């Protein structure tokens, strides 16, 4: 079997099988390879560089099921020129894809332990593959908890899936919103996601935590987990910085001595704690 040296800067064409608007500024694309039979195995936590013809390229975490590598799912927030152009693409359109890149969530290291997954906003998207992975081998893990915070009920992602997971006896799911604007309905919690940690049943000595969301939210969440008795070595976060190449050459994604594209985006907290407490790094 010959190994093809693929130029990692060359996107491969993938076709949009389904494009779905999730919230007012977020959409999800299900992609299939342009060439039938191609697949892209990935690990939870990894990301792809998605290219919109003529517009540009952005790093987007995989948010689909790693057991299904023939279908790539990406949940994207339309915040800039490229993502806004991407939000206008439809079923049948082509997107360029490079990847997968990056370090994964510690789904292996978590076997035999309790798992706490804490997501803020769009941070639920890079964590969803972890949930799929764990649920596919549920017996290998202890208590599994998902804590999710969104800005308003209208910003809650994967609502039907959340409700499905909520219904399971082997998964604790708590969702909360910062506030409920007029016209929206919500019977769940109100308050920041860190407030859910106290009520979550997990043994801090036997738990691995995986956190994803805005950096400030992750920072405050870690403080609460440490207060609860967790150790810094059992907490994992996912970092984000400007990326242009995703292969460690352009230099943009540096965070102290690490390159987020290849040393991250998932980091064990104790390894980057000194850098997180510095500013403008």
């Amino acid at each position, binding site marked *: 079997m010959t190994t093809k040296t693929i130029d*990692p800067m060359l996107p491969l064409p993938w*076709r949009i099988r389904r494009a779905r608007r999730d919230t007012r500024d977020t959409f999800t694309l299900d992609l299939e390879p342009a060439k039938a039979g191609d697949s892209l195995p990935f690990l939870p936590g990894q990301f792809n560089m998605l290219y919109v013809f003529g517009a540009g390229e952005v790093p987007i975490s995989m948010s689909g099921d790693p057991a299904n590598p023939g279908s790539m799912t990406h949940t994207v927030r339309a915040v800039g020129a490229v993502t806004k152009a991407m939000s206008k693409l439809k079923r049948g359109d082509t997107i360029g894809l490079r990847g997968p890149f990056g370090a994964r969530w510690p789904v292996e290291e978590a076997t035999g332990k309790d798992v706490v997954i804490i997501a803020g906003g769009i941070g639920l998207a890079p964590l969803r593959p972890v949930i799929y992975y764990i649920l596919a081998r549920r017996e290998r893990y202890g208590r599994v908890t998902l804590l999710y915070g969104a800005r308003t009920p209208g910003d809650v992602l994967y609502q039907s899936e959340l409700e499905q997971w909520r219904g399971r006896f082997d998964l604790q799911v708590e969702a909360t919103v910062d506030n409920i604007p007029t016209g929206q309905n919500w019977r769940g919690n109100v308050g920041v996601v860190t407030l859910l940690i106290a009520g979550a049943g997990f043994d801090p000595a036997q738990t691995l935590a995986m956190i994803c969301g805005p950096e400030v939210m992750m920072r405050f969440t870690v403080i609460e987990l440490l207060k609860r008795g967790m150790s810094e070595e059992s907490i994992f976060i996912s970092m984000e910085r400007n990326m*242009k190449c995703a292969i460690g*050459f352009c230099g943009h994604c540096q965070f102290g001595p690490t390159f987020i594209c290849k040393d991250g985006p998932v980091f064990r907290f104790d390894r980057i704690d000194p850098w997180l407490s*510095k500013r403008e790094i």
Partner: protein
Amino acid sequence: MTQFQGKFRLERAHLQRLFDALIRRGYQIVGPTVRDRAIVYEQLNSVADLPMGWADEQDGGSYRLKKRDDEALFGFTVGPHSWKQFLHPPKQRLWRAERQGKSFDIIQEDDKPPKYAFIGVRSCDLHAIAVQDRVLLHDRSADPIYRARREDCFIVAVNCGQAGGTCFCVSMMTGPKATFGFDLAMTEVLEGERHYFVVEVGTEKGVEAINEITHCEAGDGEQARAEQIVARTATQMGRAMETADIKELLYRNYEHPRWDDVASRCLTCANCTMVCPTCFCTTVEDVSDLTGEHAERWRRWDSCFTMDFSYVHGGSVRATPRSRYRQWMTHKLATWIDQFGTSGCIGCGRCITWCPVGIDLTEETRAIRETEAAGSQSREGISGNA
């Protein structure tokens, strides 16, 4: 690198034959020449293009050429150019894309770079090339653009006969003597009527080249003379950098007030990153034409001094000039060591010379080292019992 015994003497009058031999072997010769009142690296057609009789005077924010009173061909140090512009080109198209209905085709570039022969590579720049090799060839993957240019490169190093006003290769242990990374290394000797080069061979390719041109073994006196010249250069360094514990020193001092001081001077003009021979950061530009049918992706040099460099949705992570200068200097001198196992700085001094306001990283490091205790004083001003 295999040890190649013996040193040879090449007469100045025969240097052109080396050029001819390289051209015959299909190399494009690149080396120093005078243009726009600076000594830059460009394609050379003959020895006549070399900066004969020119020297340079450098200091913080200052670069001047001046005439020598001899006809040395390499009587200067390093200028605004480095070899990275050939190995890691400033602008490069990565691929083109053509729309095909709802899809598109990506057309890879047929990258056929010239085979370069670098003439006059200083020891510091040999280290710079090795530093970039580590980043672009020997890390997790290799950059094909760099590799295509680096693989066939023929390097003729020159041992410096004089040090520059901003040089500190001795502090960084990168010179002045070339010790590796070359096919040939030459020391220029001018003694009265005599003008010759003492040549050391570094590789098989170097042996083949030297065998094609008139040369003889260098006598003991000639070798001694060459060594003397290089030893003297080592004593003339314009700057010095204390490198003991430098990584830990900078890691400890991310909040030192010196960063505010340098930020009040730094224009974030990015000159330093352009002239630095190890800076490797690039960006990617996706462009399309007006029809929207054809797109291209280009790669070009970028600098951490721009606001765009650290932009994430919402704003730039390094919004202040203070944080951007700090990023550059701590990357070059500290985090580079954790990333790649060596310093990113090779002591050429270009950043000092070409900074419009003469910011000197040897001085900034010294200031932080000397005032480290002062940097951690408490904040409150006590106003007494008023």
